[in-house]
């Protein structure tokens, strides 16, 4: 009797979905990192830790009904800005880190507004992606 050495050719719907979540998160990660480090002035290590949390959240968020994984990217940015803001407020509030005008200015803004600005970068990315 011959035993086929072929593996299952078609991946499950769940693994396709998980891959898409991972892909979209990876595509957005550069922007997230810029938001965390350049704008919200987190250290590299802090940003990396927050990015891990964001991925865990985003993966579950994508299972909620209502939008495709790709359409959920703006919400990922909102969550990123919200969490970065609350974190920096906490750090500055405890006196561990001093604030400057640039940091104060971004902490005064609503995270959704900051995320909105970043979303424009995503649109530009999408445009370039479709163009390519």
């Amino acid at each position, binding site marked *: 009797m011959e035993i086929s050495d072929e593996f299952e050719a078609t991946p499950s719907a769940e693994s396709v979905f998980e891959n898409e979540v991972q892909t979209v998160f990876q595509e957005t990660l550069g922007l997230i990192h810029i938001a965390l480090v350049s704008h919200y002035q987190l250290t590299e290590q802090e940003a990396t830790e927050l990015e891990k*949390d964001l991925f865990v959240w985003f993966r579950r968020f994508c299972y909620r*009904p*209502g939008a*495709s994984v790709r359409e959920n990217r703006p919400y990922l940015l*909102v969550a990123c800005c919200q969490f970065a803001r609350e974190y920096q407020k*906490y750090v500055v509030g405890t006196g561990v880190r001093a604030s400057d005008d640039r940091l104060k200015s971004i902490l005064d803004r609503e995270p959704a507004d900051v995320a909105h600005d970043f979303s424009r970068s995503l649109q530009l990315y999408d445009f370039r992606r479709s163009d390519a």
Partner: protein
Amino acid sequence: MLLMTFRAVCNCTTSAVQMPDVANVLRFRPRVTSASLSREDVDLRADEFLASELYDSESEVDRTLGVDGDVLTAVCKRLGDVLNEDPRAVGEKAPRLYRYLCAKSSRDFFFDERDFFLGESALLAAGASRLLGKKEETELWLDRADANFRHTVSPSPQLARVAYIRLTLRYQTRRHEEVLELLPSVTLTFEKLGMENDEAKCRFLEAMSLKELGRVEESSTKLERLAFSRRERVDQSLYGMALVNLGDLRSEKGCFDSALAAYKEAMPLLQAANRHYALADLKVMVGGTLRKMGQLTQALGAYRDAVQDHVNLGMATRVAYLRILFAEVLLEAGKVREAEWEILAALPTIDQEQMVPEGFAAAALLRESVRQRNPDSNALFELREYLQASN
């Protein structure tokens, strides 16, 4: 370390809630993340969670599991999957899950997840209460769901689902014109968000409201469109329910054969989905059609089964209505003693649940006539009409 401490103290939602006085809350345990849980672990823990008796923060289950987003997602999905099949079980477990989550702090969750899971558990409890005919409880659970979903990052899909259940409540209280006025907005939300199943449910509710308003042709057209344009991502039992009601409309028009054909087509769809409630309703419709066809013996069999099915489902008010309907057919068939039994079994629930305050006189007349062992068919008819209007 600073980040871990922060994770433990922060309350991260999209609302503009200010941070608490952080200087006082530095010593919180670090939060355990769920990134390392395998699918099997998640399933196992979801089962353990649902099987546990207490769901409280002091229980052994809580000490073992802690709060885990993946497990909670699996728990909510399981409850959602069996909602239509077993609303009584969901009606017990979802409120307990809600109370369990209420006792937890935001710091145990990622970002907006406490609000999301509270909203989900409340929505499940609302869905179960509605199916069990508990209108006031449903409204309270919907308010709770609404209050929690509003603080999530993307509330529109969940709030639309809350709005949908509110409309089904209006349907149940016979405010059909209002349903038809408000439904298009909810339908459009689902359409825009690509929520095909919820959109199909709205289209079904629209057809049902038209049916109740006597706009038979419009209702038939919409039910046919729904039943015969099937989509893969829509719960197939919804098509079964569309066919059941299409059969009922055909039966009203005297097209008995095509009515029975629609019922026949609906049955496997409902059976495959374990839609016991809809199957029980199907028996009521079949009973009605057989009664119109003059096949009283078969009609009585269908009604008898339907009553028993509703009893098994724990739908007390619906059972009371069906017993009265069954009694009417029993009287028609000359089975007076059996009719008395059904009436006597129904009246306590009708009184207790105040099902027809406006039909009080008819209920009193009927009770007296049964006491004299001579059921008043007019009072029975009148009471059935009142009940039908409120069911």
